[in-house]
């Protein structure tokens, strides 16, 4: 598989701040690649390094094998869906979408025809004459998408594209984006701080922390086998167990992670119970109840499917889990 984008030891420093610090990264062609991380973790800077709005302090970025260090944004074969959409307020929807073709010198009729095709692709036929201000958030998002796709980029960059939408619309757009990516066969690089979004949409995931990549892999790999406490914590509200607790559960003296959904509650003193503790928190989530149990000073979350009897705060319960669910992590 060809690499669409490669970062070789790329850093971007702003004064003494290392926004991106020695990142090596390969985005395979045709991937739906998510960059996930908390704000300030360097994921957006990485996206801007690809689009060309930031220059690496050191290191090299290649887009389809070509070193892009000296190529300004307007000459790169990538297009961006911006976080706030950045639609041109003075142009109608059709001219917004046709903008990339207009600056390339395509004739008015040709570019308008192309814009209408793109509007049909994002299901906005008949909206061409409206101004961006007359559209809803979801519709603006689609216009931004059509406008970025009209130039037939080799890589489409999406900067938190769903952040401004409400939950229901966001879920619908997630499915649509995924379908669109499959249909066009394009490489999508997608920045988000929402782990659910990243896990459900991407086929490749890079987790960022403090300017570095904490882990790269498929969503499944990262969810099941987080490499560090940070990833375990950030990607799946996983339980992170300190070495002493791991050891008392039969593992080596190493940090480990345990998914709340792999933990079952049993009556205290039951022979299946591996560790007991006190219930210190309850949160009803609809399909399940999240129970916090404090054992040996560590809070462990368990997901109790609805229908099962819910303990009260202060009750003592034992935990049971498949030893295979205990995932050991390298380092701290």
């Amino acid at each position, binding site marked *: 598989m060809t690499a669409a984008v490669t970062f070789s030891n790329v850093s971007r420093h702003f004064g003494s701040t290392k926004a991106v610090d020695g990142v090596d990264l390969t985005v395979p062609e045709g991937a739906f690649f998510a960059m996930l991380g908390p704000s300030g973790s360097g994921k957006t800077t990485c996206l801007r390094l690809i689009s060309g709005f930031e220059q690496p302090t050191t290191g090299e970025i290649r887009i389809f094998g070509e070193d892009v260090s000296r190529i300004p944004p*307007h000459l790169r074969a990538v297009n961006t869906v*911006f976080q706030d959409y950045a639609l041109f307020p003075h142009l109608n929807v059709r001219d917004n979408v046709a903008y990339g073709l207009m*600056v390339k010198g395509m004739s008015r009729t040709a570019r308008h025809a192309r814009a209408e095709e793109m509007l049909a692709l994002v299901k906005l036929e008949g909206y061409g004459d409206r101004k*961006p201000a007359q559209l809803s958030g979801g519709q603006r998002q689609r216009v931004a998408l059509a406008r970025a796709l009209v130039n037939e980029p080799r890589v489409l960059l999406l900067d938190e594209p769903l952040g401004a939408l409400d939950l229901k619309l966001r879920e619908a757009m997630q499915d649509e984006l995924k379908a669109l990516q499959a249909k066009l066969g394009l490489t999508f690089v997608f920045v988000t701080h929402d782990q659910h979004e990243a896990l459900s949409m991407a086929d490749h995931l890079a987790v960022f922390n403090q300017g570095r990549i904490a882990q790269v892999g498929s969503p499944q790999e990262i969810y099941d086998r987080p490499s560090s406490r940070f990833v375990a914590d950030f990607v799946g509200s996983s339980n992170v167990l300190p070495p002493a607790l791991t050891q008392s559960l039969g593992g080596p003296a190493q940090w480990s992670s345990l998914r709340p959904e792999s933990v079952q509650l049993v009556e205290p003193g039951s022979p299946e119970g591996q560790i007991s503790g006190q219930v210190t928190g309850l949160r009803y989530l609809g399909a399940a109840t999240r129970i916090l149990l404090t054992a040996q000073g560590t809070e462990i979350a368990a997901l109790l499917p609805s229908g099962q009897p819910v303990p009260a705060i202060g009750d003592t319960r034992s935990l049971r889990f498949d030893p295979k669910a205990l995932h050991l992590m390298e380092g701290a």
Partner: protein
Amino acid sequence: MRSDLSLSDPRLSGPRASLGLKAAAFAGLLFLHLPILLIFLYAFTTEEKTYQFPPPGLTTQWFGVAWNRADIWPPLWLSLKVASVATILAIILGTLVAAAMSRAKFFGREQLSLLVILPIALPGVITGMSLRSAFGVMEIPFSTWTIILGHATFCIVIVYNNAVARMRRLSGGIMEASADLGANAFQTFRYVLLPNLGSALLAGGMLAFALSFDEVIVTTFTAGQQSTLPIWMYNELIRPRQRPVTNVVAIVVFAATFLPILIAYYLTRGGSETAGGGK
């Protein structure tokens, strides 16, 4: 202008004002605007030596007299020329400064921005004196151009303020979006920045024109033997004859300055809605 806008917002209006407050406000408005109405009234009086009240009779003859007075025309043309050239200079330079200030981040940016707006905060006498001495030191003879330079110092500020406010309200992303879509810097300027800045520049230009047209203090310091219209009017008031002619000219000055301000107000009001609408 912006504060007028928000005060007229119905959401901000509190409980109804008391009768006393209303009366005081009305009296205040009368005090401010009645003299202007009187100026209009005396343009039509039949009595030319003193402004006696009420006017003994009304006539439109002074408009004809003013039209035929040869000494009015050179100051009028000079004022128009100075205001036009100063405004054009201000639009070009003010826009460039605003673009630099809103796009780049550099050391001393805040201080520089203060320096740019200083000419409008400085008393006109200071600006006038310093320019006069500077022209003297550089041995530049007083001419129409020295007046224009003097006026440009504060006209730039007006344009700059308008342009910088509009640039701030523009979603910064649209310039990047333009580049991202393949536009070079000139295309971005032509197709994105200019259309979004247009009404702000027009408004700034009109305000600058109005300010320049009736400026007296800086002009007094930077003009040689020439008179602009306001200075001609001031000199005319001292003379005893044909006083209503001054009032006729006052009406012209009023129209030449008030209309641009009014248009500028409506332009920036509409602009704020469209500029904010993109978000």
